């Protein structure tokens, strides 16, 4: 298939960016979206132009490095996948595809389609852990039975890959789904309960400092999340936050 691409080009964080048109021809429907981008870049290199910078690494939907806002959707048109798992069979010959970076005040553009998501790291550093030493002197793993239900629910929350699609999708650029998932994972497990109050207060505080917006319950994050993280996690975080605030 032959396609027209309108790609966001931006030389650096301080420079002005703009959409630039490119044509790619003979694209196979079996290619992944990023392989199509590889074809474009090879073409640009051969015509003495600078290739498009984009983040990607594992190319199997788990590392969370790839981003891209494709035709107005984080990770493109299909549901439950990351950009690297999107295949060209989702498009047709003659299509025009808009490719932009994930946009949010807390995700400044570094170059072209690459954004800075270290704000996510800083939120995790503010409390996204259980304070246990890595000495190996912990109790036996089976000394503390955990109900299968709680373990499974914690696992569902823990599958977040930290890609930032929720933020890019949200009209408020809210990070509540991301933070809610981490708060929930630990709130659901007995190991995490000891520090639960401090954790939720600190993580929410850091989220605000980073400039993420508030949640207004539109639910777009849940729909665009490649891992299907549930909105329930936001509700749980709010409960945890309220509980912690009342305790003072």
């Amino acid at each position, binding site marked *: 298939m032959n396609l027209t691409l309108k790609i966001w080009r931006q030389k650096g964080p301080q420079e002005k960016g703009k959409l630039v048109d490119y044509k790619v021809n003979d694209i196979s429907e079996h290619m992944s979206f990023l392989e199509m981008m590889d074809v474009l870049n090879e073409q640009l290199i051969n015509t003495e132009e600078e290739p498009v910078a984009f983040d990607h690494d594992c190319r199997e939907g788990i590392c969370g490095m790839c981003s891209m806002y494709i035709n107005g959707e984080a990770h493109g048109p299909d549901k439950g996948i990351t950009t690297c798992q999107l295949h060209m069979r989702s498009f047709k010959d003659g299509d025009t595809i808009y490719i932009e970076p994930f946009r949010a005040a807390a995700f400044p553009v570094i170059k072209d389609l690459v954004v800075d998501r270290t704000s996510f*790291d800083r939120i995790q550093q503010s409390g996204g852990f259980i304070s246990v030493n890595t000495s190996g002197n912990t109790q036996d793993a089976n000394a503390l039975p955990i109900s299968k239900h709680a373990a499974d629910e914690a696992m569902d929350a823990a599958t977040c890959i930290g890609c930032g699609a929720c933020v890019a999708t949200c009209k408020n650029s809210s990070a509540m789904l991301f933070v809610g998932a981490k708060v929930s994972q630990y709130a659901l497990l007995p190991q995490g309960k000891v520090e639960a109050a401090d954790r939720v207060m600190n993580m929410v505080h850091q989220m605000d400092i980073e400039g993420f917006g508030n949640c207004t319950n539109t639910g777009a994050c849940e729909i665009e999340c490649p891992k299907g993280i549930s909105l329930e996690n936001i509700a749980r975080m709010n409960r945890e936050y309220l509980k912690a605030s009342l305790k003072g």
Partner: protein
Amino acid sequence: MSVLDSKVPEGPIKDKWTTYKDNINLVNPANKRNIDIIVVGTGLAGGSAAATLAEQGYNVKAFCYQDSPRRAHSIAAQGGINAAKNYMGDGDSNYRLFYDTVKGGDYRSREANVHRLAEVSGNIIDQCVAQGVPFARDYGGLLDNRSFGGVLVSRTFYAKGQTGQQLLLGAYSAMNRQIARGKIEMFNRHEMLDVVKVDGKARGIIARNLISGEIERHSAHAVVIATGGYGNVYFLSTNAMGSNATAAWKIHKKGAYFANPCYTQIHPTCIPRSGDYQSKLTLMSESLRNDGRIWVPANIEDSKAIQQGKLKPTEIAEENRDYYLERKYPAFGNLVPRDVASRAAKELCDAGYGVNATGEAVYLDFAAAIERYGNEQAKIHGHHNPSKEKITALGEGVIEEKYGNLFQMYEKIAAENPYKTPMMIYPATHYTMGGVWVDYNLMTTVPGLYCIGEANFSDHGANRLGASALMQGLADGYFVLPYTIGDYLSDDIRTGKIATDTPEFDAVEKEVTDRINFFVNNKGTKSVDHFHKRLGKVMWDKVGMARNEKGLKEAMAEIKAIREEFWKEVKVPGDANEMNPELEKAGRVADFLELGELFAKDALDRNESCGGHYREESVVKEGEQKGEALRNDKDYAYVSAWEYKGEPSDAILHKEELEFKDIELKQRSYK
């Protein structure tokens, strides 16, 4: 005579690690505050090491090329992590885990290291659970285990099909705690480009800030390399796009010996290549072989018709299918080890029996399992005379419960429904058992320079068992290196801060900047990927699943020629002082072009078949085992550690003889 000293402690194997820990030098907590350690790579090994060293009180600087330490490729591991907990009461023990690992590695690993690995395995699970890793549990609330290939017990802990992700996020959370305390200084989007030695000891690195292009000097009292394997030397592999051997190769060129580069694991169950544009291959967990039957058409005409799209696999009658693993290996059938399954697929595809448009694929068929499970379910639920459709629906339900996420992943990539038509699979490079040579302390041949995780060579011999990579990464990082490095650093308590404005740093920084400037100014005619793909093709064709003397000699010459052309014709657009992914790739491919040649040289030297390394000259000549791999313990029971001497072909071989005091060496048989 070898100059290698493995420094394995004396005494019975069961006591070595304990005795060692009792007798090493320690650094007191006040002195740890005056000691800096650099950790490069933040996967399971690097992440867990950085967290633990920081917690002990050292000042840690951690580096990763990704935008966050959470994205290291350990995250992609699916199946699980082994530990000798014996929670299932099936007779597991440290000794059994040790034995299985040495046997699985085809008797080419160092016994003492493997036993230590088994000893600390249980502790890893305790640690991870304490950190909040949500392992699978049974209804009683206790941890669940499953079984993996090559062993007779259930010792694999798992978190759905995302065990690597959950363990890495555990290590990442431990790192975050130390970053928040200021004990780890984290350098995201930084790539180590060389190591700096002062008076023969590793004392720092030169790194490039991948956002600004700035070249930075970082000093420390010790440097730890945890940068993973070199599978991307094949261009196509299950590794991440950025996975590279640069750190490992650079330290090799600065004096660290490189061991057993030819030991590579080619995993049998990956989604096949669909065209020349392919950028990477995706692994499907080998657990699928528990229920899937592997076959190709028995008649080559049928294969041809399938390749041309004129015939569908479901149209081929049962008697016209060749279930070749069941035919050749009746005892193990579809569950033969990874290397055996991979080679069998390649042989048939090379002979023209492959399917898919490329002819490079075999079928993995679940129809029989669906029918079997369907009948079973029908009985359980009391359906009398169920229709064929009913049985299929019930059977598909069972398969979905077991492998749902894998089937979905396959469908997304291949656009075929694997419940209705057989999956297509083909082997792909997955893991490299070889790596930087280390002693029992995990120190390389350069003092103060350590290497952990997949990047080193020590624990998996010539072949790694499933669910053992995660175990080794975390064992090295959480429980081994933090002890062994203290013994070395106890000499450094009075050293003080290492200066970076020295001739040693000047010289290495110049080497690094010269090379970068060369790339951006070369203005050649061909892209980096062009050369990487050509290297990958030579590696796959001649240094892949089956190797012979003629092919390996050709490969060495061809790789050298590609390398020479690369340095003349490579084209790197953009500047050095900005984010420049092509420049990053150029440096990595330049190193792969050297490593690939040493890889072939090592494969040429080792004229025996062992584990993932199969030499066509070393096979059983007659009898029931005819054509099977033949190990040669008399001549090759050693670790090949290569010393850099300029051109890869000039590398000098040092042998570490392997002694097996606790295990009897046996030839593998899966017939």
